[in-house]
């Protein structure tokens, strides 16, 4: 599975793995800069899924026959791949989910809901994605939890002291994204965890963006819960994973009920399987697990630091070139931030801009990016966002900049 590490990052070679990147839209070459919404998938991932489905597929677990054994092995090997990717201690600390959103909801329903008393607090940053907000709003609406919000600085940075200040004796959980999908801000996660633990609060890190752009070590971070999603990791849709410390999982009640997650079912009793099975009711995303493992293997085949440097170069170049436009205001400029360029444009609405960029072949996202509290913080309803992946190039940044200039001509 582990190809030798490529130590210099060769973007042209990587691009060749992504068939979609050579397609055209409206007669222009596609410039895909909507990676924070979802990344494209290399042929290694698509091949892995197709080959698996066409040659080894059956339902997992409980089956005695050859294909079922092969599928089960493949599925559990994917769990081990995720474990390694996050450097979790045990494979049984990895629960497969349908995506990042479900992973957070699992924590909300299975860990938090039975533990939350009215007045208990959950600390959130204002830069959270709705997926790391709404599950906590449920606890507010249904059980009287109190949400305590931590602001970010004007540059979008999140300060561990500010988080610390929000944590009180009634704080049960700190829920914070590892990397913001709008600002690119990378949270001081290790420090936040230390502060939270010192006060007896657990920490959930939303790693849907963070795990894509940097090496994650959940043991070093000492985080209680960490979630990832396949489709942003160059992997398939329909799969994600939750890391949770073994002790947490053991103490958590089930989320969905169904096959595979039980020990015994009677008419008036039911007992549950041990983790991680307890949290994987029903037939899991079997084929997608092979795709996720292939995606992680793909990403891991590169020197991650070289990829990060490449992405940072793209961001820095785009940031620099954006200075040409005095009508463009970048939102989020924290030190060490990831390769996401969000901006407002004076007198031009993000949607009009995105429509014009689209006709130039440039795919960006315009809107609130599922982060309305953050939009409110920056006094806007929407921004335009160009987010970079390993396969993007400086030449694509140039296309973006030219397209922005054109849009200005039309709308300005």
């Amino acid at each position, binding site marked *: 599975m582990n190809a030798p590490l490529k130590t210099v990052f060769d973007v042209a070679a990587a691009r060749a793995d992504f068939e979609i990147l050579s397609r055209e839209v*409206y007669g222009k070459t596609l410039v895909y800069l909507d990676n924070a919404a979802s990344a494209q998938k290399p042929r290694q991932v698509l091949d892995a899924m197709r080959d698996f489905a066409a040659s080894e597929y059956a339902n997992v677990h409980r089956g005695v026959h050859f294909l079922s054994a092969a599928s089960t092995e493949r599925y559990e090997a994917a769990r081990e791949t995720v474990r390694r990717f996050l450097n979790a201690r045990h494979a049984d600390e990895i629960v497969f989910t349908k995506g990042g959103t479900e992973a957070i909801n699992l924590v909300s329903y299975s860990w938090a809901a039975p533990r939350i008393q009215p007045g208990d607090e959950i600390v959130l940053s204002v830069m959270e994605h709705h997926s790391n907000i709404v599950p906590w709003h449920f606890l507010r609406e249904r059980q009287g939890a109190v949400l305590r919000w931590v602001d970010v600085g004007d540059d979008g940075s999140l300060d561990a002291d500010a988080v610390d200040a929000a944590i009180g004796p009634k704080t049960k959980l700190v829920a914070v994204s590892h990397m913001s999908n709008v600002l690119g801000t990378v949270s001081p996660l290790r420090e936040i965890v230390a502060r939270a633990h010192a006060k007896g609060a657990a920490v959930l890190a939303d790693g849907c963006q963070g795990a894509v752009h940097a090496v994650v070590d959940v043991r070093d971070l000492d985080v209680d819960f960490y979630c990832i999603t396949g489709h942003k990791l160059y992997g398939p849709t329909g799969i994600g994973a939750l890391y949770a410390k073994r002790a947490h999982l053991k103490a958590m009640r089930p989320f969905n009920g169904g096959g595979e997650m039980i020990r015994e079912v009677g008419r008036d009793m039911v007992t549950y399987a041990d983790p991680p099975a307890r949290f994987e009711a029903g037939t899991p995303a079997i084929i997608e697990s092979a795709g996720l493992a292939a995606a992680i293997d793909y990403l891991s085949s590169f020197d991650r630091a070289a990829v990060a440097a490449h992405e940072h170069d793209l961001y820095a170049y785009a940031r620099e070139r954006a200075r040409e436009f005095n009508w463009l205001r970048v939102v989020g400029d924290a030190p060490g931030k990831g390769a996401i360029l969000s901006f407002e444009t004076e007198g031009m*609405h*993000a*949607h*009009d801009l995105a*429509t*014009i960029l689209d*006709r130039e072949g440039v795919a960006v996202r*315009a*809107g*609130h990016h599922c982060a*309305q509290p953050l*939009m409110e913080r920056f006094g806007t*309803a*929407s921004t335009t966002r160009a987010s970079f992946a390993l396969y993007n190039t400086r030449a694509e940044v140039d296309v973006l900049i030219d397209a922005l200039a*054109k849009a200005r001509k*039309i*709308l300005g």
Partner: protein
Amino acid sequence: MDDSLRELYQDVILDHSRHPRHFGVVEGATHKGEGHNPLCGDRVNVTMALDGEGRIADIKFEGKGCAISQASASLMTEMLQGRSVEDAEKLMGGFLHLVKGEETELAGDDRERLEVMAGVSAFPMRVKCATLAWHTMKSALEGGS
């Protein structure tokens, strides 16, 4: 430049979006509506005062949004001022067909004035921007103040 873009962002549209007519709130409105575009988070308010004969004596809108939604709201208020409720609903039906690129029952002067919005039909993802103000107007008429 792409023809459909030129058609979409023609001068009339940009002028309406930059200098929206009937922007504001009708004092003593008899009907109010609030619309929301989940695509972008944009919002629009429509207020109207109906007279005794079911005519829209006054109509205004307020809100922030993209050029399409602003222009559409501006054009709508301009056209509906002084028209009957029945007319408003007919115009809306015709407008929806127009921006979806379907056969439209709009005719004459109405057709001519709304024609500037026809370019939206080449941009399916933007149809909601164009129809937001109209839907809000309709729900205001249905819901009352």
